[in-house]
Every structure is written in C-alpha cells, then in structure tokens.
C-alpha cells in the first residue's frame, strides 16, 4: 500500500467518524423536532434559527454536568460501559460502502474504509458486541433497576439477533456473497432482467424481519424495554450522569445511523439509484450515489423516529413471544421459500 493510499484511508476514516458524530448530534435535534411535529407542536426553536444550535447547547450541558460515580459502583467497569458502547457503535460503519469508486487525478478512491469479504459477519459481530456496553454499564452501577435494564437488553438482543441472522441467511441465498461492496454492486440501477434489482423486492419478508430486529437491536421503541422509564427509571443508565450518559444516548443514535446504512445497503440498493446509467460521468454517479445512500439512511432514521412516536412499548412477555414464536419461525420459513424459489428459477 502506498503512502497516498494510507493517507486517503485515514482521511476517509476521519470523515466517516465526523459524519457519524454529526448525524448523531443532529439526530437528537431531529428526534425532538420530529416528535414535536407529530404532536402538533413546534419543538426546540430558541437556540439559533429553527433551533439548529440546540444540539450544541445540549452537548455543552452534558459536558458541564457534575460527574457522579456511585460509591458502591465498580469504577473501572462503570467507565468502561459507555466507552465500549460508543466504541462499538462507531466501528460498525467501517465496512459500509458509501459510494462507487471516485477517480481523482489518477487516484482511485474507494469510498469504503475496508472491503472485507465477510462484511455482514463483521456487522453482526459488532452488533453483538454492542450489548456488552449496556450489560457492563448496568452491572457496574450496582443498582437493581440498572441491572434489570441490562438483563433485558441482553436477553432481547440475543433473542432478536437469531432472527436477524436468519433473515440475512435468506438474503445470502439471493446474493451469494458476504461482501457488502459486492451486495451493493449487484443491486446496480433499479431495474434489470425484468425485475427490480434492489434486494427489498426479492426479500420483502426478510426485510420486514430485519427491520423489526434492527428496532430491537438499537433499543428503539417499541422495543426500548432496557430503558423503560415507566418501570425502570432510566434502565441501564439510571446511575449515569454527564457525558457518560451522553455517550450512551449518543451511541443509540449512531447505532440508528449505522443500522439505517446497513438496511439501505442490504435491501435498498445502497448507493444505487434509478436511472444511474443515464449519467455518463463516473465521478458524478459516485457523488450522486453517496447522496442517494444518505437520503435512504436519513429516511430510515426518520422512520425509526416515526415509529417511536406512533407505537407504544411492548410488554416484556410479548417481546419474547414475538421474537421466539413469530420472528424465528417466519425467518426459517423465509429461508425455505427463498431456497425453493431460487432452485426453480435456476432450473
């Protein structure tokens, strides 16, 4: 690898990191604004025009709040919890292909930090790691509500990861590859060979399963039982204050961003958009592709919020029922049906 390539990769990593943080920052603002609009209100509008400086005010407040570590808490783990949480949230975006290759002054810039051939497995691994942050934080707080929240988070994530994995297996039957770059390339354009290219149209049930599991994995309503305020005060982050609490909340929004990007890449064509072959400049296509991907991601983030302000929380036994008795059988049926259809189509 040349020095220039290393620099380009480094710059790309920094840009993606900055964008994730910025989007997480503004997701907090968007959440409040969207919630307000859904409830016929205006939302924050005092800090700057339309309140766009509100997240900075909130962030500044988070930094300046008193940092409290409970006397009976395990100090090392108490700090490790939110750190791990935000770390795992941030590394998920490493394998996502943000666009086609850019060619600038003879240099080919790959708009993806790393194209490992087991990209989906990496995502699944990172998602599974994410629960450790919540678990450790809830355990280290030495508070029964935190512990209950952490236990709920762990069991919920384990239950829903299974159906998420099964939904992805059905997708793998269609794509035949684990590399996210190749999956995105296969969905080139919008229409080819008499059918849509996007995987959503080949795996509608799989997408439904995946999005339900994504809601559960990011601990968003209707599956936000780990932080269920009505029963558990704040759930796993009951004892947290100042920026450590901020990290937990932040990682939730980064998770939303990353899972939106994963869903867009796996099922909604990633950086591909309709009629992309009509544009002849490859660089323009690449840039528009990035814009298209971000539009899809923003839609998913909006959808997460839309659902949050529509649906009430599941009861815990309903959550488990849905995960084990509905989603997993459906996912297995989806694999069988996909296998049969593929066998027939290939004959």
């Amino acid at each position, binding site marked *: 690898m040349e020095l220039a390539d290393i620099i380009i990769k480094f710059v790309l990593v920094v840009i993606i990191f900055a964008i994730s943080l910025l989007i997480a920052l503004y997701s907090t603002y968007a959440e409040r604004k*969207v919630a*307000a*609009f*859904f*409830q*016929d*209100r*205006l939302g924050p*509008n005092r800090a700057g025009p339309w309140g766009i400086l509100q997240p900075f005010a909130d962030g500044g407040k988070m930094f300046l709040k008193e940092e409290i570590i409970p006397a009976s808490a395990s100090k090392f783990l108490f700090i490790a919890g939110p750190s791990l949480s935000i770390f795992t949230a941030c590394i998920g975006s490493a394998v996502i292909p943000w666009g086609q290759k850019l060619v600038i002054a003879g240099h080919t810039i790959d708009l993806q930090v790393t194209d490992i051939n087991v990209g989906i497995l990496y995502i699944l691994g990172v998602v599974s790691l994410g629960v450790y942050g919540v678990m450790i934080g809830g355990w280290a707080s030495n508070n029964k509500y935190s512990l209950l929240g952490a236990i709920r988070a762990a069991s919920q994530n384990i239950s829903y990861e299974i159906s998420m994995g099964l939904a992805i297996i059905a997708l793998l039957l269609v794509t035949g590859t684990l590399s996210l770059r190749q999956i995105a390339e296969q969905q080139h354009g919008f229409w080819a060979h008499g059918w849509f290219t996007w995987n959503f149209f080949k795996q509608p049930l799989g997408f439904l399963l995946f999005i339900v599991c994504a809601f559960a994995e990011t601990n968003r309503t209707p599956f936000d039982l780990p932080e269920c305020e009505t029963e558990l005060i704040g759930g796993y982050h009951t004892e947290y204050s100042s920026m450590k609490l901020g990290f937990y909340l932040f990682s939730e929004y980064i998770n939303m961003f990353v899972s939106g990007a994963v869903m867009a890449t796996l099922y909604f064509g990633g950086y591909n958009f309709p009629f992309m072959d009509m544009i002849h400049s490859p660089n323009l296509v690449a840039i528009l592709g990035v814009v298209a991907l971000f539009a899809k991601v923003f839609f998913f983030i909006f959808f997460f919020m*839309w*659902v949050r*302000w*529509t*649906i009430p929380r599941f009861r815990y036994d309903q959550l488990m029922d849905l995960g084990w008795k*509905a989603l997993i059988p459906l996912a297995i049926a989806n694999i069988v049906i996909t296998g049969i259809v593929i066998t027939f189509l290939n004959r």
Partner: protein
Amino acid sequence: MEALSNKRKVMEAKPLTFLERIYLPAIFQGLAITMRHFFRKPVTIQYPEQTREYSENFRGLHSLKRDENGKERCTACGLCALSCPAEAITMTAAERQKGEEHLYREEKYAAVYEINMLRCIFCGLCEEACPKEAIYLDGPHVTSDYLRKDFIYGKDKLVEAPLNQ
C-alpha cells in the same frame, strides 16, 4: 344489581383475529395517523412574542380604580376583605386630610391596601362586594417572581395610573 340507566353495554373479550395478531395493519394505520399530524399546523403559541387572547370575562390582576376626576374610589370599607374566601386582602384605613381632596373621593381612604397574590383565587367576589366600584379584576396574569414577599401587591402595583399622565 339493577342498572342505573339503560346505557349499559356488555363487553366480551373476543380473541384477536389473525390480522390483529400480526400487528402490522394496526401499525400502518397508526403510522398514517401520525403522518397526518406531521403536516398539520402546530397549535403552539410562542408565549412571550405571541399571547393568547383573553376571554371577555377573564379575571386577572386587580386594579383599584379612580373616578372621572382621577380620585381613588376606595373608601377602605373592608367589604372586599370580608368577602374574600381566601383571606388575601388586608387594608388599613386613614382619614382624608385637608388638601387631599383631589386624591381621594371620600373622607376615608385606604392608606395601605395589600393583596397576597399567592392566596388570591381570582374568584371575583371582591369585585362583587365593592359598593364603590373601586376594584376590578381586569388586569393581565400575575407574573412569576422569586420571593414570597414579592407576591404581596401593595397600592403601588394595584392603583390605576393617574389620569393626567
């Protein structure tokens, strides 16, 4: 037990149908409802800049009225304090001296007139009790403050501004 009215409706718990059990139709219905609200005009009134219109019979801050010549109407008879169910009104009467005829309409006036706005329930009974039409609850809201003592409004805050100003 006999029903009090014939409006009783017997409810029976029906098992959920298949469509209800898969949640999705209900969820999409809910999403449609929230989306309709998303584009609805917000009902927020941005308070310091915009204020809501008060109704015609709104009872707000009290004002002690003056007559057409700018003299204070209150004669410190104490009927308002007597009628007040919250016991918010206290006053001290004084006799009008020579040379004060342009200030007070009758021989007796209230030297001190205080209403505790934390006690006042804005019922308007003082207004009704007053035989001199001296007190009306026609002001705005009582504003917030930091100390309890600052909620005891004296004549400086209650009496109407003089006419010639």
